[in-house]
C-alpha cells in the first residue's frame, strides 16, 4: 500500500467505471442491469419462499433436500453463486450455521448479497471457533444439547439453512410462513420468527 493517502474510494470506483465506459468495454445498460440484479433480484425473500414451500409441501421438501439447486430453480431462483446449492435442515437436536471464512461466498439467488456483519472479519474469524458466543452476541442462545454444525463455504457449494417451522404456525399460508423466515434464519444466526 502506498505511503500517500489513497484517493477517496468513491473517486477510485468512478475512475474504473468511466475508464471502462470510455474504452467501450462497458455500457451504462450492462452496468445498470448488474446493479439491478444485486439490489433487487437476489434477496432473502426468495430463500424464505423456498423454506415456506418446504414447510407446506412434503414432496418439495424431499426434492429440496435431495437437489436444492433444482428445487430453487422450480421457483425461479437460479444464477451466479447458485450453481450448486445444498439445503441444510435444522432439527430439534442439530442447528446449522453458514460462514465463508476466506471471502464472503453466499448463495446470491436465494440469500441475496451478503450483509456487512456476515462479511466482517469478526464473524469470519470467530464463528468457526466459538459459534456459541458468536450466536449469543447475535441474539441466539442454543442449549448445550443442540449440536451446532458450522458450514464453511470454502469451495463451490452454496448453502441455505431450512430453519425449524415455528410452533403455532399450523394452517398458515405459504406467504404468511415466508414472512417468518429472515436472512439471518437462512444463514443460521437466528431461528425463524415466532408465529
Amino acid at each position, binding site marked *: 500500500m502506498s505511503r500517500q493517502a489513497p484517493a477517496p474510494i468513491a473517486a477510485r470506483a468512478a475512475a474504473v467505471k468511466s475508464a471502462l465506459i470510455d474504452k467501450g468495454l462497458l455500457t451504462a445498460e450492462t452496468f445498470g442491469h448488474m446493479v439491478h440484479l444485486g439490489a433487487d433480484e437476489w434477496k432473502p425473500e426468495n430463500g424464505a419462499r423456498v423454506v415456506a414451500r418446504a414447510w407446506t409441501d412434503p414432496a418439495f421438501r424431499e426434492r429440496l433436500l435431495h437437489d436444492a439447486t433444482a428445487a430453487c430453480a422450480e421457483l425461479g431462483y437460479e444464477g451466479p453463486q447458485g450453481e450448486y446449492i445444498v439445503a441444510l435442515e435444522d432439527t430439534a437436536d442439530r442447528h446449522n450455521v453458514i460462514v465463508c471464512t476466506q471471502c464472503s461466498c453466499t448463495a446470491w439467488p436465494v440469500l441475496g448479497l451478503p450483509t456487512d456483519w456476515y462479511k466482517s472479519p*469478526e464473524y469470519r*474469524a470467530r464463528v468457526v471457533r466459538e459459534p456459541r458466543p458468536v450466536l449469543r452476541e447475535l441474539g441466539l442462545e442454543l442449549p448445550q444439547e443442540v*449440536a451446532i454444525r*458450522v458450514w464453511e463455504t470454502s469451495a463451490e*457449494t452454496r448453502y441455505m439453512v431450512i430453519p425449524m417451522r415455528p410452533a403455532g404456525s399450523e394452517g398458515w399460508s405459504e406467504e404468511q410462513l415466508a414472512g417468518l423466515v429472515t436472512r439471518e434464519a437462512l444463514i443460521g444466526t437466528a431461528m425463524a420468527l415466532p408465529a
Partner: protein
Amino acid sequence: MRGIHDLGGMYGFGPVVRESDEPVFHEEWQETAFALLMAAGTVQPGFNADQYRHSVERMAPGHYLSVHYYERMLTGITTLLVEQGVLDLADLEARAGGVFPLALPVAAAPMAALTPQPEARFRVGQQVRVRQYSCMGHTRAPEFCRGKSGTVLRVAPKFSFPDTSAHGGELREEHTYHVEFTARELWGAEGNDSDSVVVDLWDSYLEGDAP
C-alpha cells in the same frame, strides 16, 4: 502458511455487530464495485473467479483488514485489469485525482505440488485427513483444518480446481467433499463436545486416514 484472507479461527477480533434493516449497498461506490465485478467477464473474456479471489487475497494485509468488502472487491478487479493491460494505472490515478492502491504481485511460485485427482477417491462416511501443504498462491483449504482428520458427509460434483485455475496452470476438475471436523479435533480442549465444522474440500487436498 496462511494469507491474511484466511481468517478462520484467528484470535483477537471483537464482537460481531449487526445493523438492523441493513441496505444492500450503503453508498453508491459499493454498487459500482459490485457491478464492475459482475461485468468483468464481459470486459475481459479471460476473467475467472479464482484469479479474482486471489487478487483480493494479494492485498497488503493492513489494507485488506482495514477496508470495506466492496473496497477489497474494487481493488481486486482493478488489479487484474491493470495487470492484464486492459486499464492503465496512471490514467486511473489521474481520473481519481490521487493514489489508487492495488494488490501486490503474485508470488514467484504460487502453486503447491498437489497431484491431480480426476476420479473421486473417497466416499461418504470415510475418514480423511487434510494434507499439511504450504502454498504462497491461491488455495481453498483453510489453514485451520490442515493436518486435521474428519469424516466425509457428502461427495459434491466436480468443480474447477482453484489453485491451478487462479495461476494459469493446467485446468482440471475434481470432486469436492463436505468433510466434518469435530470442534475437539480443530480446537482441542477449547472445542465444544457437541459442535463441528464442515469444510468443502477438493480431492487433492485430502489423503485417506485410517479410522
